[in-house]
């Protein structure tokens, strides 16, 4: 794809769309006929028992795995066969279930790696022409870096500010110069979100962001996620096993089991869906909710 | 002008000038010893030649010092290892010349190292004598570079002549060491000479220094049913080649060059080489008293038979000492001129006369291997 992607708000269509996506690992069908569409400002949830295929879904959407069937579209562009970084350039960013930070880099650098100046966003796309152009631009970039051109320095400064801002949003300013590997678990998760935001995504995929946080921190996180959605106005898709969180913030929830989509809808519907309760929530959940609510 | 060093082929004038600061810089005056620099490979595949070289020179110096030294001063040598690498050789030579203020450089066996050394010596205007670099190009480096052994073309020719005329054979396969210029050089000359004399070369195979398995090449050679195999390599490979050839049922005699010469050869080859011939600078069997004395002294000092490299380095040192004696002073140019005049110098490895190309004009000995010893067969004159 050569022309840079059309802006989300210009077009009314979904920013992220999966149509009949399936993937197979050897004999195991980890995801089958998966459909999803996320628009700007959406805040959706993806839940299901362990091994249902949630993370796999993320991997297919972000290009880590190639779907064996179906089609993935990011802001209208078909991205089957694209590399993860190309898809990311189209505006799709994610966090990882088992944290994958750049462990030896400082928190700030972790974010800066992802950050890109407005100008510098150039999806290389596929096709020769685009590749060549991309390469040329790249080499220009190298030269600007080597010659330390004023423009380059300005950009560096901008990146730093951008990154610092994101750290602030995530409440990590005090860890600015600490190596990522030395941060406690919960903060590492927040840092991953900050990093993902650095790539200026239109859609953000969060894989169990609340894992390893205590109830209090989860409560804060809920607020934070909403805030991100509004401030950066993007679409968000959350995988989470904490029902309080999912039910609390998601407007729409998709439920997977053994790769199949067994339910989709408002929290209220899903919560009371027989199949979902059997496969995932468990009866006791109802009581506990009843008790809590 | 100062910036760029004189080109390797550097004209004498420049070399001479550059020499002034380097050698005649009064350094020798201060000390009451005359320093000879030696660069050779003390580690790496050719290290054994290095130690022979060192011993030969050491012996010559000991004798000279015992005899009261030169110009009333004691002779001293400093040996540096070049690990068989040109850049190390160049570095060591430069150090010897500029830091240690050596008057004269001796070495090395491998021609590529000698070439590197020659370049530096020539540039600095310090005379250098190589005792056994048989590649012609070495002395072509300039007027400060000398050699006390015959050169590859001659040696290759000698063996071809011997094979054709004395042994009367017409089919000789060749197994050359692809990693040594020496071996490649001999191969070229031998092939040319031998075919000119009407012989045939059914196969030319090659190996790489340090290999230990030559069966593949030998299997191929064997197919061509040659009457002899010319193996112009170094003894440490030749020994194994011989064994494995016999093991594969190749019983034809082998022919070789001075690279063969080492007592270790027979330890490695066992009886596999019996009936083979090689060309050499000298023959231990030579009854000449001066040779026998050398051999005796060498054995006494270092144990073990001296090989050609020991003998040649001994001669080289002797020539150098004689030149130092003759030279009016110890500046580079005068030593150079003194060496250049060397004529009919009685070396243990043959009489040395330097021609205008600064190469020794010498006869070669053909030796036959029998029961782990060498027998003198004949000498071939240029």
């Amino acid at each position, binding site marked *: 794809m050569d022309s840079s992607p059309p802006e989300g708000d210009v077009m009314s269509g979904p920013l992220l769309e999966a149509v009949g996506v399936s993937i197979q690992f050897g004999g195991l069908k980890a995801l089958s006929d998966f459909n999803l569409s996320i628009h700007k400002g959406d805040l959706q949830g993806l839940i299901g028992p362990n*091994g249902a295929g949630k993370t796999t879904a993320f991997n297919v959407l972000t290009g880590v795995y190639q779907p064996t069937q179906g089609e993935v579209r990011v802001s209208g562009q078909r991205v089957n066969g694209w590399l993860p970084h190309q898809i990311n350039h189209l505006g799709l960013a994610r966090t990882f279930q088992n944290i994958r930070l750049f462990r030896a880099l400082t928190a700030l650098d972790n974010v800066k790696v992802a950050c890109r100046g407005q100008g510098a966003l150039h999806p290389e796309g596929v096709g020769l022409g685009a590749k060549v152009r991309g390469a040329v631009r790249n080499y220009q970039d190298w030269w600007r870096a080597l010659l330390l051109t004023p423009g380059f320095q300005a950009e560096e400064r901008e990146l730093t500010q951008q990154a610092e801002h994101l750290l602030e949003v995530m409440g990590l300013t005090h860890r600015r110069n600490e190596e990522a590997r030395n941060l*406690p*678990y919960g903060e590492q998760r927040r840092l991953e979100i900050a990093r993902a935001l650095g790539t200026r995504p239109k859609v953000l995929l969060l894989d169990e962001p609340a894992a390893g946080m205590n109830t209090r921190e989860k409560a804060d996180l809920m607020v934070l996620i909403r805030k991100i959605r509004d401030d950066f106005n993007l679409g968000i898709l959350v995988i989470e096993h904490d029902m309080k969180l999912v039910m609390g913030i998601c407007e729409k929830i998709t439920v997977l089991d053994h790769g199949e989509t067994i339910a989709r809808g408002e929290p209220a519907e899903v919560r009371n869906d027989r199949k979902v309760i059997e496969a995932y929530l468990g009866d006791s959940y109802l009581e506990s909710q009843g008790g809590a609510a | 002008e100062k910036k760029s060093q004189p080109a390797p082929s550097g004209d004498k004038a420049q070399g001479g000038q550059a020499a002034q600061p380097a050698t005649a810089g009064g350094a020798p005056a201060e000390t009451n010893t005359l320093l000879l620099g030696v660069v050779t490979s003390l580690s790496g595949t050719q290290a054994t030649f290095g130690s022979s070289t060192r011993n030969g020179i050491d012996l010559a110096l000991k004798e000279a010092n015992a005899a009261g030294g030169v110009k009333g001063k004691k002779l001293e040598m400093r040996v540096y290892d070049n690990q068989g690498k040109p850049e190390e050789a160049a570095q060591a030579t430069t150090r010897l010349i500029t830091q240690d203020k050596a008057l004269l450089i001796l070495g090395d066996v491998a021609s590529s190292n000698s070439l590197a050394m020659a370049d530096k010596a020539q540039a600095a205007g310090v005379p250098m004598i190589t005792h056994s670099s048989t590649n012609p190009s070495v002395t072509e480096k300039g007027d400060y570079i000398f050699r006390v052994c015959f050169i590859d073309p001659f040696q290759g020719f000698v063996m071809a002549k011997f094979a054709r005329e004395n042994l009367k054979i017409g089919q000789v396969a060749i197994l050359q060491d692809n990693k040594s210029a020496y071996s490649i050089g001999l191969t070229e000359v031998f092939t040319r000479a031998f075919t000119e004399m009407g012989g045939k070369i059914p196969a030319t195979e090659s190996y790489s220094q340090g290999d230990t398995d030559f069966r593949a090449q030998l299997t191929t050679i064997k197919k061509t049913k040659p009457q002899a195999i010319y193996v112009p390599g170094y003894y440490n490979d030749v020994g194994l080649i011989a064994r494995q050839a016999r093991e594969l049922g190749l019983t034809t005699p082998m022919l070789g060059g001075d690279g063969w010469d080492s007592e270790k050869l027979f330890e490695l080859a066992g009886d596999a080489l019996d009936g083979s011939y090689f060309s050499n600078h000298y023959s231990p069997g030579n009854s000449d008293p001066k040779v026998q004395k050398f051999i005796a002294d060498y054995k006494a000092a270092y144990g073990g038979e001296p090989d050609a490299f020991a003998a040649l380095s001994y001669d080289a040192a002797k020539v150098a000492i004689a030149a130092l004696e003759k030279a009016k002073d110890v500046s580079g140019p005068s030593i150079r001129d003194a060496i250049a005049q060397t004529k009919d110098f009685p070396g243990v490895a043959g009489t040395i006369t330097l021609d205008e190309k600064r190469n020794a004009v010498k006869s070669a000995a053909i030796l036959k291997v029998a029961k782990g010893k060498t027998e003198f067969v004949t000498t071939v004159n240029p």
Partner: protein
Amino acid sequence: MSEAQVKVLGERREFPPLLTVDGVKVSYGAIQALKGVTLKVGKGEVVALIGANGAGKTSTLRAVSGMLKPVGGRITLSGEDTTGAKAHTLVPRGMAHAPEGRGIFPNLTVLENLELGAYLRDDADGIAADMEKSYGLFPKLRERRKQLAGTLSGGEQQMLAIARALLSRPKLLLLDEPSLGLAPQVTETIFRNLRDVNAAGVSILLVEQNAHLALNFAHYGYVLETGEVVMAGPGKALLESPEIRKAYLGE
């Protein structure tokens, strides 16, 4: 560094002593993670360890199981001093640790991982029986028996880690956030089964973010803050206390 005064609520039920951790200090290079932690676990007791991120819960477990050497303090396991003992020497003495980050062997199959859990045992049929038990506990693992553990889903890996720890037939079981990444249903099953495990006489030292769950489950609980124990008391008592409700239950 002096012990911060610990606020103790309520009465502790008596258990015969098993593990005592006395003023243990741990540091990673410059960072001091534990500034002197003191706690006890009795035979057959379930003790919960709660605290904010970076409080030092994981570090405490690591120190106890010998994964890292304390720079100060003393640890004893059933009377013997085990301070700074190598991890593998503690396993025979009944220590089992399901570490943070699960620590499964990704290039080994699920089965091989479980077998490694029983590395020091050689009662073949005993092992077989326990395998069956853990499969009963986590049916998913049976399905995936032959799969490389590295390709399991997050939750499946968590199940594997717990099952593996149980396979060594421990006297003392250290669990670092067992519910991490598990579906609510599975979490319940696990805790139900841990109840049985404990009933069979196994002591459990549990680190858990879900304070509600943990304190309900545990006989006794400690609250860790920035490397020090600041509060202790029976699980229920802690659940009652306003501080806890505010700080960890977000109410």
